């Protein structure tokens, strides 16, 4: 029993309404035809609380898994008509099942290379990833690409499921060779926990029960291993961070800075600081509906009322004065390019952090990850599915952390300013305090210029300040699109 469930117990919930101890988010990925959907279907079929009508529908479909008498378990997962017709997974599918103590969320991701961005999207939500390979083919380019993406989005635990062992006569030799390749692969990345398991999804071997065909394998079967893994880490580790998401108001007296605490904890009376403005105040009240709290920690959605109004808005990151985030207008990061349109140095992009959205003056692609050698190779461009090291220069500073230490305030998206699409996602590897040296050609767009011109009609109220910032961002974007390097000084 975890410490948290021990804390939970005094709150007597009626017997049948029992709440589960945690949620484990499980990603499955692999190449086309490795049998991902079948594996999940099998897991649901054997281990979960599937409803009878879902079981009936599957049996009645009349489809069987390739050459066997088993129902086609993949039908439990592939939900879109096009997917069923083509027999492939296009987009991630979310499935839920409970064991006695735990909620499992299965995120099934597509194997097709052209849908890798959907896989990256799914992976960012996962606590553990099952990477599937076909026992006949072993670790492939796509496996390496997936490992690279898992590493970038912060997945720390991986399982290699070597599937279709039935098609290689349950060969230990085959399995060990693939396991060795996998070890080599995982050593290149920052995984905390990696294990290879030989399975046959169609037959259910080592999925939710031990296989009779592979007595030489003495490790845990898949479900056994999954039940042993810790659920999402929710202990309040790291320094306090609350990226301001929304400002709540109630009459003249209440102004609440709302969001979920992204790391650490905060108590009533603590001094908190907005790194962007350098202003600080004390926490007067931590409000939630129903009751006020004495403290709030990572994962709790709250609203902080401060003792003095320090004029912070969405985009600010509250912290302790001693452990502030970096305030940077240049960041180094790793990203995966998600959009079909390749990176275009002339296009307008925005950087989306936890809650901020800032204009980007330039992105420099430094190198791409070579998926054969796993080495960085110099590059200038990036297109869909590429993993790149980049330097990003911003039109104004943002408050961020290193992704490896604080993923909640270290993750970012690159947003296309015109279409609004999320074209890339990544993590900050380093962020320098202060701004990068201004090039001589940089145009400085100042608060005064805006106040005299396009923001002349705005006052000092909350909404107007928000609108001021929006117009400033948009003006910077337009200038940038016209080829002018802009620096916002607000």
């Amino acid at each position, binding site marked *: 029993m975890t410490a*948290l469930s021990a804390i*939970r117990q005094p*709150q007597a*919930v*009626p017997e*049948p*309404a029992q*709440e589960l*101890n*945690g*949620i484990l988010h499980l990603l499955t990925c692999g190449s086309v035809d490795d049998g991902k959907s079948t594996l999940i279907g099998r897991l649901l079929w054997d281990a979960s609380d599937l*409803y009878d009508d*879902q079981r009936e529908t599957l049996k009645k479909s009349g489809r069987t898994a390739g050459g066997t008498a088993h129902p086609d378990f993949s039908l439990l997962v592939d*939900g*879109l*008509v*096009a997917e069923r017709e083509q027999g492939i997974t*296009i*987009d991630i*599918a*979310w*499935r*839920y099942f409970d064991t006695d103590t735990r*909620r499992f969320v299965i995120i099934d991701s597509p194997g097709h290379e052209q849908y890798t961005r*959907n896989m*990256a*999207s799914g992976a*960012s*939500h996962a606590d553990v990833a099952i990477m599937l390979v076909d026992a006949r083919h072993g670790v492939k380019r796509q496996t390496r690409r997936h490992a690279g993406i898992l590493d970038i*989005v912060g997945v720390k635990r991986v399982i290699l499921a070597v599937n279709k062992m039935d098609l290689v006569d349950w060969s230990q030799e085959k399995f060990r060779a693939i396991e060795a390749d996998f070890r080599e692969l995982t050593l290149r990345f920052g995984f905390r926990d990696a294990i290879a398991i030989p399975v046959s999804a169609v037959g259910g071997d080592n999925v939710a029960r031990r296989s009779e065909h592979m007595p030489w394998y003495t490790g845990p079967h898949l479900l056994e291993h999954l039940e042993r893994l810790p659920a*999402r880490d*929710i202990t309040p580790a790291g320094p306090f961070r609350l990226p301001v*998401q*929304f400002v*709540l*108001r*109630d009459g003249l007296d209440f102004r609440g800075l*709302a*969001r*979920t605490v992204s790391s650490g904890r905060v108590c009533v009376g603590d001094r908190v600081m907005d790194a962007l403005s350098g202003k600080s105040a004390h926490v007067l009240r931590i*409000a*939630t*509906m129903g009751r006020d709290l004495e403290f*709030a920690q990572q*994962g*709790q*959605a709250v*609203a902080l009322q401060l003792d003095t109004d320090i004029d912070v808005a969405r985009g600010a990151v509250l912290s302790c004065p001693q452990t502030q985030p970096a305030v940077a207008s240049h960041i180094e990061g790793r990203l995966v390019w998600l959009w079909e349109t390749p990176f275009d140095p002339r296009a307008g992009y*925005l950087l*989306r952090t936890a809650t901020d*959205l800032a204009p980007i003056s330039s992105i420099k692609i430094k190198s791409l990850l070579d998926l054969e050698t796993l080495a960085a190779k110099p590059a200038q461009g990036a297109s869909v599915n590429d993993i790149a090291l980049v330097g990003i220069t911003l039109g104004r500073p943002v408050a961020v952390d290193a992704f490896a230490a604080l*993923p909640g305030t270290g*993750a*970012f*998206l690159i*947003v296309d300013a015109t279409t*609004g*699409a*999320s074209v890339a*996602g990544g993590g900050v590897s380093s962020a320098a305090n202060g701004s990068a040296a201004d090039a001589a050609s940089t145009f400085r767009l100042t608060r005064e210029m805006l106040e005299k011109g396009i923001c002349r009609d705005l006052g000092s109220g909350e909404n107007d300040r928000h609108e001021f910032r929006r117009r400033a961002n948009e003006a910077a974007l337009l200038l940038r699109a016209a080829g002018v390097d802009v620096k916002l000084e607000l």
Partner: protein
Amino acid sequence: MTAPFSHLDVLESEAIHIFREAAAQFRKPVLLYSIGKDSTVLLHLARKAFFPQKPPFPLLHIDTTWKFKDMIAFRDKTARDFGLDLIVHTNREGIERGINPIDYAPSVYTDVMKTQPLKQALDQHGFDAAFGGARRDEEGSRAKERVFSFRSPGHRWDPRRQRPEMWNLLNGRLGVGETVRVFPLSNWTERDVWRYIAREGLDVVPLYYAARRPTITRNGQLLVLDDDRLPLQPGETPQMKMVRFRTLGCWPLTAAVLSQASDIESVVAETLSARTSERQGRLIDHDQTGAMERKKQEGYF
């Protein structure tokens, strides 16, 4: 001291995050309130997200005129009790054409009386985002949907061109003519909804609790007669039976289940031990293969 986190605490925090994220980024959101248990939980979470403010958006109900009378009474009381603006929209043209769930195929009825008026209402009021209570565990195409689900002009959903959605960074920047459906309950299951209703002590429409009601059995489904608009077929005689609903929609299209569960504890117990999925009771979903996906592409929630 507060103790995080059971799985319900995690789901609650996540939903509050989604509400606040949408309210911060969209110009004019609305909450699509369909009166059922999911809407009840959705509204409760919206109130939590913006406390002590009121939720900064109105409720929108698409009234097909075929909802159970108890549902309409519950809707009006809820809006009144919480002091929220309620917009009720009906497709008048559909009424004039006499489109009803009895004489028309479910696909036609749903399009004319639900999908079309929803699009009309969103367009008329200029809402750029609409919160809905849909859950990914409900149905195959729902399982594929994003939390911020972008719709192209005309409210169409293209499952092949969904935006990547990473971590909890919900990107609400719209392209020209785009709108968004927002699903704060994406990761909840039917079981969670009931567990949460019990935990938070929420009121739901009485039809969710078992009572003796006038029923007929048609095509193997148990229908409750809410008024005299459904013509009885030869041999059909209404019988009083102890029934309740797992899901609520238009009354001639929603089947009841036999049940003795007349309070929240027994409903939760029944839900946790149920052997069939809840959409069994929704007749429109069985109309044709991929029915929900097609409806969604056309703009249904």
